[in-house]
């Protein structure tokens, strides 16, 4: 169930890429990255930029601030664009929209960053747990046949109980809407009632054997 890792940062030679597939992928990523850098430069320094790129297939991608055409015309004619009230209005409006979009962008990037940290924390927790004496927390591929069968029995027993709980809740119509994952983000409740499994312990024979319900300690 592990994700195949991507290539990561590789130092490459600056020469035409021979493998067509790599070339296509590189083009797509770098073109996007180039436009991103251009957009950032426009915002940070208030300059006007245009970038024109032809794809390997001959299609043309272009980026321009304020617009590709205005920059291209300005370059060709060597004259600054006419200074009109209309232009000022359009520019001001555009600037406000871009500012708003950039804030949204920053927000999403921050959320992604936070999510990434959260994922790493969870991975770390899992790694620590699998190293300790709890054999059942090791990846499935590291378990022997006996262990696998034991684990499966425990999980099936747990699943029965969870299903009972969901049935019970839907029958009662008493759905607890409060979020499980609290503000501290840890997702674990400290003082937990364990009466449920104790109730079911007698009804499921496997519970005693595998330890589900009594812990593996």
């Amino acid at each position: 169930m592990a994700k195949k890792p991507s290539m990561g940062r590789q130092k490459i030679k600056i020469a035409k890429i021979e493998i067509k597939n790599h070339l296509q992928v590189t083009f797509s990523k770098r073109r996007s990255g180039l436009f991103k850098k251009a957009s950032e430069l426009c915002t940070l320094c208030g300059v006007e930029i245009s970038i024109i790129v032809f794809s390997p297939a001959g299609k043309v991608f272009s980026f321009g601030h304020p617009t590709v055409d205005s920059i291209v015309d300005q370059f060709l004619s060597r004259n600054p664009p006419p200074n009109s009230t209309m232009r000022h209005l359009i520019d001001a409006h555009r600037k406000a929209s871009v500012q708003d979009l950039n804030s949204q962008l920053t927000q999403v990037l921050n959320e992604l960053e936070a999510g990434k940290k959260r994922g790493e924390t969870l991975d770390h927790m899992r790694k620590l747990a699998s190293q300790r004496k709890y054999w059942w927390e090791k990846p499935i591929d590291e378990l022997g046949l006996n262990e696998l069968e034991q684990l499966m029995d425990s999980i099936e027993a747990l699943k029965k109980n969870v299903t009972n709980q969901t049935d019970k809740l839907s029958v009662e119509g008493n759905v607890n809407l409060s979020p499980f994952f609290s503000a501290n983000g840890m997702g674990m409740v400290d003082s937990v009632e364990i009466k449920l499994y104790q109730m079911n312990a007698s009804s499921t024979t496997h519970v005693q054997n595998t330890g589900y319900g009594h812990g593996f300690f």
Partner: protein
Amino acid sequence: MTRTKVNLAYIANDSERKSTFKRRKKGLMKKAEELSILCAVDTCAIIFSPYDPEPDVWPSPLEVQRVIAKLRNMSPLEQNRRMMDQKDFIRQQLTRLSEQMAKQQREIRHKEMTNVMFECLKGKGFEYLNMSDLNDLNNLLSQNIRAIERRIKLLEKRHNGGD
């Protein structure tokens, strides 16, 4: 460069803005050149700034003119099809990023639920879980059961298939 996070807004400080401009302009031109060489494609960049009446260009004014001519020779439809201003580009980025975020949220959910599963196996109860959490937990349990079944089958096959 410096791994400090940059605030995506106009730099008010004049000297900071000028030095940022110089640094990033250099980087931008370099990236344009790399793209051009790596993918063997026609590329050009034009920058108008308050620091120079003449625009900064890559590769050269003559080459820029050639690329512009190549652009303008295409039909208006083709020209405009992949033409973007800042708004368009940032919207495109936002779409891409929100897809990334949805995927990330699913992964986090899966990881958190896995922790819950192991806690439950150790004996912790789950009355505090709401309906949605319980359903996700149930699905995860089914997933794990199937994965274990597959693994058991594989091991048995190996054991039997071996000498």
